[in-house]
């Protein structure tokens, strides 16, 4: 196990190294002089030259590259010469010296990500001020996706080919294909703006649901009264609630048609169809961040409700993926011999599904979830922008717009580190789920 993790960490470092090298050279080859950006519009040539010298931009590319690596590495060379590019500046570096190598000293320090060209803030500060919000958002989205995705997947696998299965499939396809900026904008507008104070719930679907429910209950009572016990389809409580659900969906579908027609052709308000009940508002905001400073005291106050809309918007896509993967792998597992064994033991269907089948079906799902989580950590630029979420995606976008090399590199390194870490964790989780691939 230890050997395996060490190997993975080693591969991870190699990958990180490749990423750093690639991004560094790509970004430097795009042209443009960062010194102009730092100096501002009124800088003279002399100032520009000084800035270039200060930032080491006058050096050849390969030297700049090695200097960057030297800054980044936890074990690095520095000296006491203030003019040198590797001067041990205590305002930048924090660490302890180990021993002298020639005229330089070998130091053990925290990796230094340099300063942003545009804002002059240390890149580490920028990352650490934006990263937590992104992590919370990604985590919330993945939890939603995983929980609901697995539940929907299991239901549609068990009820294969039925109404429930087909409707989850339609929802999944819609979730996969709707672009996130679109869903984000709609969600933000509807739940944050229109229904924020008070919600206007359409009455028609509700009536349809009640109607279906009424018929269902009536049929149920009739059956019990007559004691009609046909072999197969006796009406159960579950069946009645399914009818009610179908009624609700049917109602929603008709109402949506009506709304579209109403808004496009502007025909008259049909009684019943257009009626709404005024319900309590959602109380959500159009945009917002997780921590909002209080107007008077200036303390950060947690606003958890601001997490709801962006998390759901972000979670829809992985949710669709997870539910379809769970479905297909559950279908495979339910045909396995050991499920038959579990049934032959006399276990209840619930235990068979959730104890014996689900654990076996989880591996592909874990892969999908971890992949989505890692890519959400890289920042969801659209969603973050629409909800004004102060995340790493926004920070990266700003940096790219300003060709702010240190920030781009810093953010990239942090994101790739996350990818590597998550992959290692997932490999360990596989072992927990399936002892056959548990590593010795």
């Amino acid at each position: 196990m230890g050997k395996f993790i060490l190997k993975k960490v080693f591969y991870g470092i190699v990958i990180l190294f490749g990423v750093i090298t690639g991004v560094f050279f790509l970004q430097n080859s795009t042209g443009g002089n960062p010194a102009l950006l730092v100096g501002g519009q009124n800088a003279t040539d002399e100032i520009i030259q000084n800035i270039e010298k200060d930032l080491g931009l006058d050096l050849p590319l390969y030297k700049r590259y090695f200097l960057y690596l030297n800054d980044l590495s936890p074990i690095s060379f520095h000296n006491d010469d203030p003019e040198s590019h590797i001067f041990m500046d205590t305002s930048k570096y924090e660490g302890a010296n180990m021993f002298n190598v020639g005229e330089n000293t070998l130091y053990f320090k925290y990796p230094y990500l340099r300063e942003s060209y545009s804002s002059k803030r240390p890149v580490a500060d920028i990352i650490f001020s934006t990263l937590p919000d992104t992590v919370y958002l990604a985590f919330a989205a993945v939890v939603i996706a995983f929980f609901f995705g697995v539940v929907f997947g299991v239901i549609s696998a068990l009820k294969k080919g039925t109404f429930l299965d087909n409707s989850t499939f339609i929802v999944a396809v819609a979730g996969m294909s709707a672009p996130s900026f679109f869903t984000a904008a709609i969600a933000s507008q509807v739940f944050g703006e229109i229904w924020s104070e008070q919600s206007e719930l359409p009455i028609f679907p509700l009536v349809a649901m009640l109607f279906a429910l009424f018929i269902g209950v009536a049929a149920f009572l009739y059956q019990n009264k007559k004691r009609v016990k046909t072999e197969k389809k006796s009406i159960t409580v579950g069946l009645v609630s399914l009818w009610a659900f179908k009624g609700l969906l049917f109602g929603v579908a008709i109402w949506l048609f009506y709304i579209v027609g109403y808004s496009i052709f502007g025909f008259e308000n049909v009684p019943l169809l257009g009626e709404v009940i005024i319900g309590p508002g959602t109380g959500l905001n159009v945009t917002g961040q997780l921590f909002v400073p209080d107007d008077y005291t200036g303390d950060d106050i947690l606003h958890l409700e601001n997490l709801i809309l962006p998390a759901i918007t972000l979670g829809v896509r992985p949710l669709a993926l997870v539910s379809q993967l769970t479905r297909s792998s559950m279908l495979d597992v339910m045909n396995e011999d050991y499920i038959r064994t579990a049934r032959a033991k006399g276990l209840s269907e619930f235990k068979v599904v959730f104890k014996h089948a689900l654990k076996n079906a989880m591996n592909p799902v874990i892969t999908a979830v971890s992949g989505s989580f890692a890519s959400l950590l890289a920042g969801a630029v659209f969603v973050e922008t629409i909800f004004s979420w102060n995340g790493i995606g926004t920070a990266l976008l700003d940096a790219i717009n300003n060709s702010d090399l240190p920030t781009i590199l810093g953010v990239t390194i942090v994101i790739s580190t996350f990818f590597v870490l998550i992959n290692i964790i997932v490999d360990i989780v596989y072992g927990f789920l399936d002892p056959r691939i548990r590593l010795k």
Partner: protein
Amino acid sequence: MSDSLLHIENLTTTFNTENGIVKAVDNVSVKLDKGKILGIVGESGSGKSVTSLSVMGLVQSPPGRISGGSIWLHANGERRDLTKLSEKEYRKVRGNDIAMIFQEPMTSLNPVYTCGDQVMEAILLHDKTLGESGRYSSITDPLLKLIVNGVFQKLLNVLVFVINIFVAVFILTLFAIYSILYFTIWLIASKLSLLGKNLKSKADSFLDKNKILLSPDSGKANNSIVEIIQSFKIPFFKGYSTAREKAAKEKVIKLFKKVKLPRPTKIFESYPHQISGGQKQRVMIAMALSCNPKVLIADEPTTALDVTVQKAILKILKKLQREMDMGIIFITHDLGVIAELADEIAVMYKGKIVEQGSVQQVFLRPSHPYTKGLLACRPPLDVRISELPTRRYFIYEDENGSLVETKKEVKEVLNELKISDAEIKMRRELIYASTPLIKVNSLKTYFPGEKNVFGKPIEFVRAVDDVSFDIYPGETLGLVGESGCGKTTLGRTLLRLVDSTDGSVLFGGKDILKMSKDELRNLRKDVQIIFQDPYSSLNPRLTIGEAIMEPMRVHNICDNEMQRKQEVLRLLERVGLNTWHFDRYPHEFSGGQRQRICIARSIALKPKFVICDESVSALDVSVQADVLNLLNELRNDFGLTYLFISHDLSVVKFMSDRIIVMNKGKIEEEGAADDIYERPKSIYTQTLINSIPKGIIDEIAS
């Protein structure tokens, strides 16, 4: 109304398929008495498994449905019709009153739970009174478990983990200081002989003992640093288990001892993939017996196992059946197995029971031609016959399409087909006069086992270990051994499908192991292989014709497509299929037909040498007989040479002129087929022969 333990009365189970309703079980009535074993025999598709699943109430619905009849279970003093039970009531019967053992031990255990847990689950489910100590213990105990396992176990284990790491680091540091100290002393002592020889030799001997730090890998078990650290490791807290669970665990270990599992406490905590197939089947038996069932259904429990393992499992089943006074329904396609075990036999064919009676009755006076066919088609061990008698010796269709029964007895047929000793001798002289087609010389195939830090293997699994033999043109060489003995690896090494480690394989004077890629491609034309699993060795997206024509095209057999097609059609007829099968896809064929297709595909290249790697092991006995006969005919027609690999000694003996017995990668014994069977020299061969189920009629009679 009878007092039978289990009485299946006019049971009909149907399946809704695309082609309408299919009756998988058609009006079947059998009775099982207490303490008796009922054998149900039939080939695959005869409905014997569906019968058992119907009894268990496990027929998948839809598409399956029990459409008629009743299943009476006489248990716990009452008689109930199982078909009328609700799902909830049925669950109390399953595993408790009726238990089942399945065919595939490899896949019948859940891979993500330990064997012990899976057996325990059944006990905890059905035995409600187990280990109850007080009135409230059924509530307090699980509650305590929840609290302890939910909170304390996790905290404690984190603590244990941290302590373990500290201990490991501490020991490592100690060792570092220790050896640096002594290394310095040794340096000083060796540089300055001033200190005298005494001290130097002392330091030398110390370093000899403590090589660990200098080369961690070289250490033996007792002084490798990893081992030392591991000996200091505190084990993780496994969690609190309730009194019921403790009692259940004890019971499971007792059961494991009963089914003769080695190291029961170890296996309790092993996962299914860590134990062998035979052991898995024993765990399955323990699971089935865990709640003292009245009826045990064993659905081909030994078909997937080696003969020696099969013998042991059957012995255990028989013993436990007597001990616990159970009724067993034993389902198999192999009459030989059932002769040793059952009291009564029911023969099933196409969903119906065609013959039913006591073992003596069915074996000595079989009335139905199908039963006769089943009895006769198992390769006999005592005589040599030219062809295995199949069903068509007893019943066949005449020109008008009506069935004709021959009324022949099994013994008569066997006598007709017998080959005389003189014929055998002549054939042997003819074959062994020529020069060998293949000479295998000290062939070795090793697989890397354990690896060191740098990925370099330090241990090898010796799959084929120094094996030499010759194969003569026109002969069939049998290769027999238990699973894992290296026989399949040997076959694949001969074809260069697996890389060898050392040795040579001369084919017509050329070393196969040193051939270039082009030469190898030509070799593939001369040397063909027929694999074990006919289901996965055909591409499901190629028609049969395409599948056979593809290699012909690669090797430029025939001049054009037209001729090739003609040739394939001819081949299809030759192997007993029809010409209109040409455009069909593999899923439309049964296992035996698929194996015929595979045979046609390899014969199409007109090879000289064919390796049959367990080619008939996946098939039923009757289908197996047909395929074996076909292989023999083809050998005589095309002048083929076979290397026939199988774990079934009776099949190998029927097919082969000579037999090689393999064990643990080495050749145990080699000789003429009859010699090996009649006068086995090695103990291993003797055990193999003794384990073959004796389905022979004489033995029953005596």
